[in-house]
């Protein structure tokens, strides 16, 4: 067991072959769906990042290099399971087929923003897609996932909870509280650390990665810890299937560390060359998860370069269309939900303060 927490679970080798004990059986259709979710995420994020430069949104952030994690897990997890995301798992929503236009409208904070302009761009909420409400504060939702899983178990419902936390954020007390509750109550939850090795400007060492792995922390709670190549779609898939089987069998929680690399800057407010070599991303050994899955698909004869080129062109078009549609509604400042929305939803029914202030604002 300790081996699994200190080593690195990999399935895809350099040639794109699926090798070793962990190799899952996934049909080509699913693999292509995974590739699509990852590529769509990459293209969408690049497009919106440019939109930010053009002043169409106040904030944006990319998950470049980490797209395999959310994509594979969204496909392995059941439709009724709930994911407690970080801001860096857009590929989950892509794999679940969340409408691009909803993302665009939320990012533009326009009139059609599904969150009514109340939340910072990319802090989505999509209950029907198994995606819990995001917010800017780190860590706090990790232990909420355990509560959700406890509730599911209490109701005899077989749905699971899955939560993500960045390696940097594991230093918050919330991390320990989540693992303690998950362990003590044998909650059906999968707790994932996305170790992309950077926390804004701080290397993972600031959270203790030089002392041991993040997966190794599981043992201190009597839980299994798996350390997985986070750029390996198949390895993520297999590890998640393992944790799901364990949870569904009421054996309890699993901690999974996804070892990956934050290829882009932290966000639109960040310039990574200030604190790390400009070519570090290029030199990253575990490779690009999209390239690796593509290579595998080609290797098993389920894909080829020509199809990929056409495929990518199609996705670019889909993204462009969605962005155009969102721009037609309006971008930041050009369009927004009615001001009344500022006062809605504070409580289930507005109290006199909100009613008076709404009148005071002359709305």
């Amino acid at each position: 067991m300790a081996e699994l927490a200190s080593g690195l679970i990999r399935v895809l080798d350099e040639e794109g072959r699926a090798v070793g004990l962990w190799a899952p059986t996934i049909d080509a259709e699913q693999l292509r769906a995974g590739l699509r979710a990852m590529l769509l995420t990459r293209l969408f994020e690049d497009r919106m990042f440019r939109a930010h430069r053009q002043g169409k949104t106040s904030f944006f952030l990319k998950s470049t290099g980490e797209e395999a994690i959310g994509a594979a897990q969204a496909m392995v997890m059941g439709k009724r399971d709930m994911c407690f995301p970080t801001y860096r798992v857009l590929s989950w929503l892509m794999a679940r087929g969340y409408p691009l236009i909803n993302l665009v409208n939320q990012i533009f904070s326009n009139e059609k923003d599904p969150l009514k302009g109340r939340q910072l761009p990319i802090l989505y909420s999509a209950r029907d897609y198994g995606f819990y409400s995001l917010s800017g504060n780190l860590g706090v939702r990790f232990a909420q996932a355990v509560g959700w899983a406890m509730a599911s178990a209490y109701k005899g419902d077989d749905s699971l909870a899955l939560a993500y936390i960045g390696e940097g954020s594991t230093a918050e007390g919330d991390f320990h509280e989540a693992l303690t509750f998950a362990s003590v109550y044998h909650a059906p939850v999968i707790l994932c650390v996305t170790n992309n090795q950077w926390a804004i400007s701080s290397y993972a060492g600031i959270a203790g990665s030089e002392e041991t792995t993040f997966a190794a922390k599981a043992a201190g709670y009597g839980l299994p810890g798996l350390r997985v190549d986070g750029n390996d779609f198949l390895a993520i898939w297999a590890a998640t299937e393992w944790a799901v089987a364990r949870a569904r069998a009421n054996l309890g929680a699993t901690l999974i560390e996804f070892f990956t690399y934050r290829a882009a800057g932290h966000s639109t407010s960040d310039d990574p060359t200030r604190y790390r070599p400009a070519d570090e991303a290029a030199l990253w050994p575990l490779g690009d998860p999209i390239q690796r899955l593509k290579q595998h698909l080609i290797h098993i004869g389920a894909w080829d370069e020509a199809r990929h080129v056409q495929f990518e062109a199609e996705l670019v078009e889909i993204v462009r269309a969605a962005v155009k549609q969102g721009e037609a509604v309006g971008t930041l400042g050009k369009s927004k939900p009615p001001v009344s929305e500022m006062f809605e939803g504070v409580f289930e029914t507005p109290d006199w303060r909100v009613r008076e202030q709404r009148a005071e604002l002359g709305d």
Partner: protein
Amino acid sequence: MADMTMIQALNSALDVMLSENPDVLIFGEDVGYFGGVFRVTEGLQRKHGIKRCFDTPISEGGIIAAAVGMGAYGLRPVPEIQFADYILPAFDQLVSEAARLRYRSNGEFWAPITVRAPYGGGIFGGQTHSQSPEALFAHVTGLCTVIPSNPYDAKGLLISSIESNDPVVFLEPKRIYNGPFDGHHDRQVKSWAGHPKADVPEGHYTVPLGKAAVLREGCDVTVLAYGTMVHVATAAIEEGDIDAELIDLRSIVPLDIETITNSVNRTGRCVIVHEASRFAGFGAELSALLQERCFFHLKSPIQRVAGWDTPYPHAFEWDYFPGPARVTKALKQAMES
């Protein structure tokens, strides 16, 4: 039907809700097998089972985080924090998460949780077993804060809180758990037996949140209080010859602005009483609201009677605790000019 203490009334409210609603869960430190350090959950695990009422690790942050997750799932968790002083490790979960979930997700998720916690002084509990943190919650948009002053209200307000779809911090004045306390610490301890508000129905009933109770009508001055201070104010009024109108706020968010404004417009004078330290305490908001709304009716400055601006000092319990003498002094000052 026998009278109930506040503890029995709270226990009854929890029992009723556990019986009527399978989505209600009760948990916290020592609340399960043991029944809680103040016995509020006594017998509930035995009667409803360990899945409905259970112990938690000593981790207030984890307790509230779990409650928020359960609430978002669809349950109605009723976590207990052993002392209100120990809510602070969970403050971020309450403020940044429970209170904001509905708003930020545009109603996709919300946290219908009721966080119970004994609070307040008068028990020689020292610094960390005596504090009154209500002002910290009152400033947080999206949180309700409820404070009962007697067994009848305690049960009805707790049931309303549990049935509310908004997060509620339910503060229980521990000094009056077993009997009313009017601040005369040198007199014999009273029990709830025979008190009109101790006559508590067995079954389900509610006392609405946001409705203050006018406990005594009067025309000279309006006295606003909640929790233990309701009894202290009552004593001060009865011992004096000022015709005061006494209002028990019962919940500070939502606040019954209408009742208090109407009263002060009528009396033109007001004394606000709370245990918490004065500076930036909830009395400040009441005072500010009333001078904004009743300015032209005010005959004298609105008075605040509160704990001093020091930590809660163990040996000086009765020098710190705002007893009847301090309330009487404020009533007189309000009547001057």
